[in-house]
């Protein structure tokens, strides 16, 4: 037993030693084996044999690679030594002539590489624009945003309460400037048709936070942001040039926003439009009595003080938030504040996807390189007789290898130029197809870093596909090639190399196919989601009523009720309804809920619900499902009994098996009315996907518009069958009610849903294109290898057939040549995909990264293609008549 073990170990270790360069093996192979067996003996006594094997394996891999690299370095030195300008020019001339002589081969290689390079550079230009270009502000790394973390629920939001801005401003050694901000939408009038313009509300110092100075006048200051402050506005460059013709005298004049007069106090610098495309900025005018520490209606942003690093700032913020939790338990218990760099927040959603796409496109490039390397290798073998002849005539082998490398480089350069043109076109195409969420405000252009990347790709590509054949030739002794052009040892050696390249191609193709497959299934899952509302034949638009003219909640509610009646009366419209907090649109209020039929719970422990204010017609207009009780009617007035309808999830979570109808609740939010009253639950509706298609909404509560009163409404119209749009009719209804109101964001629900899926669809399309490219290249490569093998072994096949081999045997023999590396590639690809799947998890929905069905289908599909590509030339081999085969040299 012992001897048996000993022999087995020795055999295995000798096999491992093959990873070392042959010289090292020859010189010290015996000693290494001896030493290893000594160590085995020790391990046998002390235990830890498995560990020894792992360590010894790593030892051989590590030092074997290092020695080989050192040797390759020596080759490279030889390659460049003695390089003169004249020799270089001569090489280029030779190479150009070589390429011209084989136009078919050269153009196939150049086109293959150009496709790979073009695709890579296109994706890189997007990555460069979105992820690598810093934000266009001074010292962007000092800009940080605040996150409010609910430690109990494990949720995180950007919400910040007004008084907190002062808390953070007090940390003057940490923050140079702090500002709270929120988006605003106001109707601009006095310049032709009314127009709703996006803007920002700030607590002042917003420009200072970004390190910018106003072009004219001044920035808003904390002093402007008091509850009874004057109406002042800072204009963006757009409004200033459009509405005031860029007049420097604009400061001090007024604009009409939401029907009120605002004094222009400043103009922001060119290009500044934070948050999200803002065209003007106004103060919050927050009243701390009305909206205090629990009222997290803004986001926070700050500039770190000079010398303050993020880690230190995080610690200090941690200390302060712990203190706040003690001082204000109602609003700050379980709350922690975290800081994150603005640059990271801006790209967080798309970062994974973009890196994945860059990874995917690099795989396509690798496949292209492997393919061209394969072609070149075949040619190097074919040319070895010529090369040997030249070598015997006095050319050094190194010199010849260098010339081959020059040829590769010239090809890569041509491909690089063609690829740059393709990339220019590809980038434009990407920008047109990419969903806006991906690109944001990024400036995507072929700038110098993209060109540097392209140059690096060309150099890398040359190294990848050019070095293999060059080193192969450089290693061969001239005599080796002269005696026997076919079936020589060199042929077998390159056969192995070509198979390895092929396995790599198949593996990469499989990884890409699996990625595309997973995204394809994700889209299927997203389409199958029960959204809880109707999609087809539903149209909606947004309407906001200026506070200055509509003011109080009851007036707003009355206006929307009248509008709903008029719209329902239209012949195009079947149902009309109004909501604040429409599905898949920002604008839901989240608030705590008090269950009055349950034991009282302190504020931080109360469950939260998404609140939507809706009109009586909304149930049918949006296509919600009433499960229990009743929906709102015209009788649910301001003066009537306060009521609410809750969602299915809320009913299940709060009341379990009990009937929720008739229960009493109170919400902590109040909006438009003095105090939120105790409400009776009158019905239960089905849940909807309100925030995202892929996200469960959690508990929801609906309140009648008439009892809630929000001055912004999403008007939802269920169209009669066959009607494409009711917008023109809706516009004229609106004009009769109030000609100064503007419709914004008109869209059909189909558009809304497809917008939600646009990013996933885009990634899938790209991955599908990439995997298609890889598949075609790998198939061509496979076909080439088998066809080449058939050509090289024609004589042998002839003999076999003459000796009675059946044509099936010959086919099988040839197929094996392609199928073996392809199978190895499939295994490798599955392994790679298995290991890399985690990276894709965030892009998937309803399908696991290791989805077996996708793996089986993709592997099967690829295997089918592989079989077809090998069968074709193999069948041809089987039909070779022995007489003609034997005539071959």
């Amino acid at each position: 037993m012992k001897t048996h073990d000993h022999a087995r170990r020795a055999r295995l270790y000798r096999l491992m030693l093959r990873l070392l360069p042959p010289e090292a093996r020859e010189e010290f192979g015996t000693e290494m084996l001896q030493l290893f067996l000594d160590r085995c003996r020790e391990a046998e006594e002390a235990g830890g044999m498995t560990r020894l094997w792992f360590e010894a394996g790593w030892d051989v891999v590590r030092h074997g690679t290092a020695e080989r690299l050192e040797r390759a370095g020596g080759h490279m030195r030889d390659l460049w030594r003695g390089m003169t300008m004249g020799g270089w020019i001569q090489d280029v001339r030779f190479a150009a002539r070589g390429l011209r002589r084989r136009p078919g081969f050269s153009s196939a290689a150049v086109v293959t590489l150009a496709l790979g390079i073009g695709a890579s550079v296109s994706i890189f230009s997007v990555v460069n624009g979105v992820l690598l270009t810093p934000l266009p502000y001074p010292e962007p790394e000092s800009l940080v945003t605040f996150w409010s973390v609910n430690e109990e629920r494990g949720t995180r939001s950007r919400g910040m309460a007004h008084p907190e801005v002062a808390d953070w401003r007090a940390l003057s050694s940490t923050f140079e400037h702090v500002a709270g901000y929120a988006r605003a939408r106001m109707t601009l009038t006095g310049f032709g048709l009314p127009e709703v313009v996006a803007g920002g509300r700030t607590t002042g110092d917003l420009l200072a936070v970004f390190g910018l100075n106003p072009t004219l006048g001044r920035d808003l200051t904390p002093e402007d942001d008091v509850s009874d402050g004057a109406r002042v506005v800072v204009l963006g460059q757009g409004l200033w040039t459009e509405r005031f013709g860029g007049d420097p005298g604009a400061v001090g004049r007024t604009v009409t926003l939401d029907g009120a007069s605002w004094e222009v106090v400043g103009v922001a610098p060119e290009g500044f439009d934070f948050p999200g495309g803002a065209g003007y900025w106004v103060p919050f005018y927050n009243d701390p009595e009305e909206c205090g520490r629990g009222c997290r209606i803004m986001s926070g942003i700050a500039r770190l003080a000079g010398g303050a690093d993020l880690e230190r700032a995080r610690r200090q913020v941690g200390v302060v938030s712990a203190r706040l939790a003690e001082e204000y338990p109602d609003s700050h218990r379980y709350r922690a504040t975290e800081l994150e760099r603005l640059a990271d927040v801006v790209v967080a959603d798309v970062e994974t996807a973009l890196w994945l796409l860059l990874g995917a496109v690099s795989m396509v490039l690798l496949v292209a390189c492997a393919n061209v390397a394969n072609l070149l290798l075949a040619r190097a073998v074919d040319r070895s007789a010529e090369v040997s002849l030249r070598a015997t005539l006095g050319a050094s082998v190194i010199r010849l290898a260098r010339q081959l490398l020059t040829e590769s480089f010239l090809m890569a350069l041509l491909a690089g130029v063609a690829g740059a043109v393709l990339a220019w076109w590809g980038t434009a195409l990407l920008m047109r197809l990419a969903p806006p969420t991906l690109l944001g405000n990024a400036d995507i252009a072929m700038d110098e870093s993209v060109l540097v990347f392209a140059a690096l790709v060309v150099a890398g590509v040359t190294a990848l596909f050019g070095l293999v054949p060059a080193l192969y030739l450089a290693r061969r002794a001239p005599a080796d090639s002269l005696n026997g052009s076919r079936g020589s040892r060199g042929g077998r050696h390159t056969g192995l190399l070509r198979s390895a390249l092929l396995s790599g191609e198949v593996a990469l193709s499989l990884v890409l196919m699996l990625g595309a497959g997973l995204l394809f299934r994700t889209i299927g899952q997203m389409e199958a989601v029960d959204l809880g509302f109707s999609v087809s034949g539903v149209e909606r638009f947004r309407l906001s009523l200026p506070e200055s003219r509509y003011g109080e909640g009851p007036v707003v509610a009355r206006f929307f009720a009248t509008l709903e009646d008029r719209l329902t009366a239209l012949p195009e419209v079947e149902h009309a309804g109004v909501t604040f907090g429409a599905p898949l649109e920002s604008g839901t209020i989240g608030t705590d809920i008090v269950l009055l039929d349950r034991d009282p719970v302190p504020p931080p422990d109360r469950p939260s619900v998404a609140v939507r204010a809706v009109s009586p017609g909304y149930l049918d207009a949006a296509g919600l499902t009433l499960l229990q009780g009743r929906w709102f009617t015209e009788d649910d007035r301001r003066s009537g009994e306060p009521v609410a309808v809750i969602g299915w999830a809320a009913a299940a979570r709060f009341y379990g098996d009990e009937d929720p109808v008739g229960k009493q609740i109170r919400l902590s939010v109040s909006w438009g009315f003095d105090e939120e009253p105790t409400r009776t639950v009158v019905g239960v509706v089905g849940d909807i996907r309100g925030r995202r298609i892929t996200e469960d909404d959690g508990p929801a509560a609906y309140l009648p518009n008439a009892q809630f009163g929000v001055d912004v409404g999403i008007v939802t119209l269920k169209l009669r069958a066959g009607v494409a749009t009711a917008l023109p009719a809706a516009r004229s209804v609106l004009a009769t009610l109030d000609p100064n109101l503007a419709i914004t964001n008109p869209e059909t629900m189909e558009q809304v849903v497809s917008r939600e899926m646009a990013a996933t669809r885009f990634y899938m399309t790209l991955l599908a294109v990439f995997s298609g490219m890889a598949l075609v290249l790998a198939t061509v490569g496979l076909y080439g290898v088998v066809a080449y093998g058939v050509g090289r072994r024609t004589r042998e096949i002839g003999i076999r057939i003459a000796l009675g081999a059946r044509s099936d045997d010959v086919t099988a023999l040839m197929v094996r040549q392609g199928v073996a590396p392809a199978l190895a590639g499939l295994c490798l690809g599955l392994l790679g995909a298995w290991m890399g799947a985690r990276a894709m998890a965030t892009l998937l929905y309803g399908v696991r990264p290791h989805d077996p069905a996708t793996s089986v289908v993709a592997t099967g599909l690829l295997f089918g293609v592989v079989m077809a590509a090998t069968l074709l030339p193999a069948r041809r081999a089987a039909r070779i008549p022995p007489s003609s085969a034997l005539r071959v040299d």
Partner: protein
Amino acid sequence: MADSPDVQRHLPLHPEAFRILLVLLAGDAHGYAIVKELERDPGRPGRVLPANLYRRIRTLLGHGLIGESSQRADPRVDDQRRRYFTVTDLGREVARAEARRLEALVDGARDLLVP
């Protein structure tokens, strides 16, 4: 004293190579004995394995810092078939120069770090 260019060329030595030279300065040894000696250093992480050891030995041999020794230990205590290594004169010089270099380095560090 300045080292000759012949010696300078080999500096700095890879730490593992330096230790092997130190082991051999104490007396000629074969691979397994060198390994055992190296592993007596308590600061050394993990065990010394064959590919690592013989890569260093090949480099040292190639640079002429060590040579093969014809000397053999008593056949009763050791294996006669093993190959023994010995330090060459150049190896001795290089080891000395490396020690001086490290000493200067440590001196410099001490000036900066020790209060």
